[in-house]
């Protein structure tokens, strides 16, 4: 005899079969739900000198270059230069590039020890000026509090077009499973041509190995399991006799 109570369930299954799961198919095939580009863009083409959307067939071949429609309008579309992103300051003559922080953690037997080795590269992109400044490394725990003391190095005489790498060792990682290394380069204004250059910071999250914490965790887990098993066997034997 069919169970009437299951009817809603069958209905739900049917609904599920029909229901679209957009993200599972999230893919390129296209028509997915009126993607943005479609109609919104055309109206703005009024600003553009070339209302026709596309490349001519001949120009879209790989080698051929795109000139196509871009060129056909005569004037370039205005979208190229508008600079994308963040509003940063354009440089003058002294342009310094600081690489990302390369850092790795090292555990020690002392549970309060452990250290992080960090390095950062400074490149002087200026054509004429020599760059100098201070690089300061700091270590933070996941709660944002500084660990240990900062380590500073003075960088002198990076010739135009050259790079220099600064290494540091940051101690007292302790049992934090994750720490954040922040390196800040403060250019020396007297040496660079841009006197108002702000300090440049780079950060990196580094996973550490809190071995004491892990050992304690494993011991607690093992104790819990043993106690649980013994208690279970006692109650079983107690109820059996």
């Amino acid at each position: 005899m069919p169970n009437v109570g299951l009817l809603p369930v069958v209905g739900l299954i049917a609904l599920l079969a029909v229901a679209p799961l957009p993200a599972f198919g999230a893919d390129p095939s296209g028509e997915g739900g009126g993607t943005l580009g479609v109609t919104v863009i055309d109206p703005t083409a009024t600003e553009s000198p070339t209302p026709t959307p596309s490349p001519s067939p001949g120009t879209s071949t790989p080698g051929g270059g795109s000139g196509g429609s871009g060129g056909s309008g005569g004037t370039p579309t205005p979208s190229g230069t508008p600079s994308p992103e963040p509003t940063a300051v354009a440089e003058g003559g002294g342009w310094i590039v600081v690489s990302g922080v390369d850092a790795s953690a090292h555990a020690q037997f002392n549970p309060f020890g452990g250290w992080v080795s960090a390095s950062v590269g400074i490149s002087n992109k200026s054509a004429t000026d020599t760059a100098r400044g201070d690089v300061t490394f700091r270590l933070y725990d996941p709660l944002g509090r500084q660990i240990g003391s900062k380590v500073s190095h003075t960088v002198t005489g990076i010739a135009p077009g050259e790079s220099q790498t600064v290494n540091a060792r940051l101690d007292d990682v302790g049992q934090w499973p994750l720490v954040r290394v922040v390196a800040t380069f403060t250019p020396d204004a007297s040496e660079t041509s841009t006197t108002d250059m702000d300090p440049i910071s780079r950060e990196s999250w580094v996973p550490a190995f809190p071995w004491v914490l892990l050992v304690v965790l494993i011991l607690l887990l093992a104790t819990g399991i043993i106690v649980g098993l013994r208690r279970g066997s006692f109650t079983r034997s107690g109820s059996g006799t």
Partner: protein
Amino acid sequence: MSAVTEAVPKPARPARPPKSSAPRPPKRPPVQYLPLTPGRKLARASFQMIALVFLAFIINIALLSHLQHAVSQQLAFNELREQLSAGTLPVSEGDIDDILLSDGDPVGLIDIPDLGLHEVIVEGSNSQTLMAGPGHRRDTVLPGQPGISVVLGRAAAFGGPFSRLQELPPGSEFTVVTGQGEQLFRTIGIRYAGDPTPPQLASGESRLVLQTARGLPYLPSGVIYLDAELVSDVQDRGARQTTYASLPASDLAMGVDTSTVWALVFALQFLIAAELALLLTAPRTGPRKTWIVFVPILTIGGLWVATQITLLLPNLL
């Protein structure tokens, strides 16, 4: 001499005394809880639903998203190869049939050997598009064309293709294959918001900016920009219909696309309906049938909700 063995009769086993000493203790009755009131049942089901959604969200973003990314990349790579061999890979915002490219259409292949990165670049850069791989921002030129080209990529979820962008040292080289051939780039360096930017491009120069999130994985705190200059020859410029002014905010770095909130509402409705059905049918059908029927339904419902929530997160996550 003969040994004679005599069979000694075994003494009869004394009969066991009757067990009359101590009476067997009665079996402890199983613990019986009071039946839940309908209100408590509803509260329990609600908490179960929240836990289910939370669990599904974690599973979806930490495990399934990477699988989904891999599948999308494979599909995009197949399409890219086909178009490259046919010479129809788009070099502007329109395809060979003069139709505007859809979000997710492949436009290039980025290869960064220093990071072991080999990904198909797709057109568009909103949250859903970046699930498939790095996305080209529509209002900028394609890599290798004169001007600034911007490609965004996720840092953690959905394969996290740009998760190690910060490790790329200045001066390292990488390539992007587009419909105009292989473009060779050399990295200038990374920067955060507010840092000095590279000099303005001279006429006929080309630069590529890769963008991703920085901070803890899945908890972004800002944006990283990696600038790279074109080393190989500059290609012709393709037409762009989208301008910076007409670009949706959801396509910018850390953009959030709320256009799919309606789908989240439907997903939640489905999950609530499933929970209600569970509450109503469980007393009649028993735990075994309930389990068999509702586990798949609730799992799929939970994943559906989780996916819709993921779509509402920043695109560089």
